[in-house]
C-alpha cells in the first residue's frame, strides 16, 4: 500500500486564478525519503498543506496512510493530523510553554498519561540534542534549537509520515545539518519523510529521491538527488 497517493490534484485559490497545483500526481512508498524542490510560489507549500488537510483540493484524489480525504469528516481531521508529524518553517511553537511542555503537548492531545509523558519526552529531546533545556521558553532559544524542538514535537508520537517544510530555511549550515541528520535518523527507524528545501548542499549530499515542482506541475522525479542541480 502506498503511503501517499495524489491523483491529478488541482488546487486553485479564488475562482479565476491560475492553479497553485495543476493535475499533480505523486506516489510515495512507505519508509521513503522524498525531497521536494522548486522555487518560491511553485506550489510546494500548497502540496504540503493539502497533505495535512489545511487546504482542500479543488479537484483530484488524496489518500494518505490509507485515509481517503474525500471521505474524511471534519471531526476526524484531528485524528488524521495525529498520524502525521509536521515541522514548519516558522517552527510554530506554543509561545507560553516550555520546551518540555511543547513536546508533551503532542502527547497530551492523544490522552497519554502523565507518567508515560515524563518518560517519553526526555528520550526524544535526547535525539534532537536538547537535554538540559527542558525548562526554557521558546523565546530563550536560538533558531536551530527552536527548530529541533519542533522536530521533537513532530516525532514524539512516532508518526508514519513526517512532513518538513523548509526546516532548514532559517538556519546556518551547521544547525541545518543537525536538523537533516535527525530527519535521516527518523527515516531509518521507518518513518516516511517528505522534505522541501532550497539548499543545494543538502540536496546533493542526501542522495535521495527528488521531485521538482514548477508552476504547479511536477516537472521531474529522479531516484537520486546526487547529481541534481537546483
Amino acid at each position: 500500500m502506498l503511503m501517499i497517493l495524489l491523483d491529478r490534484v488541482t488546487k486553485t485559490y479564488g475562482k479565476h486564478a491560475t492553479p497553485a497545483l495543476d493535475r499533480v500526481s505523486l506516489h510515495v512508498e512507505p519508509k521513503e525519503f522524498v525531497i521536494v524542490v522548486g522555487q518560491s510560489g511553485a506550489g510546494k507549500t500548497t502540496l504540503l498543506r493539502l497533505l495535512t488537510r489545511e487546504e482542500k483540493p479543488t479537484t483530484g484524489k488524496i489518500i494518505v496512510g490509507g485515509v481517503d480525504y474525500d471521505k474524511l469528516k471534519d471531526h476526524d481531521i484531528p485524528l488524521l493530523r495525529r498520524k502525521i508529524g509536521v515541522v514548519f518553517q516558522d517552527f510554530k511553537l506554543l509561545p507560553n510553554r516550555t520546551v518540555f511542555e511543547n513536546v508533551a503537548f503532542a502527547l497530551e492531545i492523544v490522552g497519554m498519561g502523565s507518567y508515560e509523558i515524563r518518560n517519553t519526552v526526555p528520550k526524544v529531546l535526547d535525539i534532537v540534542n536538547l537535554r538540559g533545556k527542558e525548562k526554557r521558553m521558546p523565546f530563550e532559544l536560538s533558531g536551530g534549537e527552536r527548530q529541533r524542538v519542533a522536530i521533537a514535537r513532530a516525532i514524539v508520537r512516532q508518526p508514519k509520515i513526517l512532513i518538513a517544510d523548509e526546516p532548514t530555511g532559517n538556519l546556518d549550515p551547521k544547525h541545518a545539518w543537525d536538523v537533516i541528520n535527525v530527519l535521516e535518523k527518523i527515516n531509518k527507524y521507518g518513518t516516511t519523510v517528505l522534505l522541501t528545501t532550497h539548499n543545494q548542499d543538502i540536496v546533493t549530499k542526501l542522495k535521495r529521491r527528488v521531485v521538482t515542482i514548477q508552476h504547479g506541475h511536477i516537472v521531474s522525479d529522479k531516484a537520486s538527488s546526487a547529481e541534481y542541480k537546483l
Partner: protein
Amino acid sequence: MRHRKLITFGRIIKTGLTNFLRNAWLAAAAMAVMTVTLTIVLFSVITSATFNNTIEQINAKINVSIYLADSTTLDQANVMMQQLRTLPEVKQVSYISKDQALAIFTAGNSTNLALQQAINQTGNPLPASLKVMPQDPSHIASIEKFIKDPKNVALEDPQNPSSYHGDQKAAVDKIAHATNVMRQAGVVAVAVFAVISMLIIFNTIQMAIFNRRDELTIMRLLGASTSFIRGPFVVESIMYGVISAFISVAFIDVLFIASSSALQASSLGLLDINYSNTYFHSHFWMLLGMQLAVGIIIGAGSSIMATRRYLKFKTK
C-alpha cells in the same frame, strides 16, 4: 478510553488554571473590565429595587375615601364593604366611624384650640367613611364606578363627595402615572446596563483570545480536538467571571459599610440608601448568585464564541 477522557478533562482544567496564572496581566485587565461592568449591573439592580420600594411607599399612601351619609346604617356600610372587597382592584377596605373620624381630626389639629372649641360646640360634623386601598393606584376605574353607582350614591354623604374627585383625583392619577413610568424606566435601565455589560465582557474576552489566536491554530495543526483547545480558554474565562463577581459584590459591600452616611447625603434624598443597604444584605446570597451566574455564563459563552472562528476547518 474512559480513563483517557478523565486525563484529558483534568488536563483541560489544569491548563486553564496555568494559563490564567501565566497570562496574569491579561487576566488582570480582563477582570478589571468585568468587575466594573458587573458592579454597574449590581448597582443598577439595587438602585432599581430601592426605587421600587420608594414607589411602593408612595402608592401605599394613595387611598380613596367614600364618605357616608349620617342616615346610612352600619349594616348598609358593611354590605358596601363586602361588595368593595369582591373587586379585584381593591387591596383593603376599612370602616371609619364618625367617632373615629373625630378622634383622628382632633389629633391632627391638637394645637388649634379655636377649631377644637368650635367642633365641641357643634357636636360631631364629620361623616363616617370607607377607606379603600387600591392594589395599584393607576387602576381604580372599578372603584370609581362603584362610587358613582346610583344605589351607592344614595348612601353617600351628599356634602362630601369621595376623595377620588376633582383636584384630588387629578393628583392621584398624576402620581400613579409617574410611578408607573419610573418603574418601567428602572426595568429598562437594568436591561440596558446588563446588555452593555455583556457586550463589553464579550469584547474583552474576544480580544484576549485574539491575542492568542496563533496558539489556537498551532494546536489545531497538531491534531488537538476542539474541546481540548477550547476547554482551557473556557476554564480561564470562567475564572475571570467568578473572581470578578466576588470582587463586585465585595466592592458594593465595602461601599455600603464605608460610606452609607456620605451616600445618603449625596443622593439628595431621592433614594432611600438605608433601604438599599437592607435590600443588599437581605438578598446577599441571591445577588452573589446572580453575579456569579452572569459572570460564568457570559465568560464561558464569550470564550466559546470567540474561539469558534479559529477552530474552523477549511471547507473549500
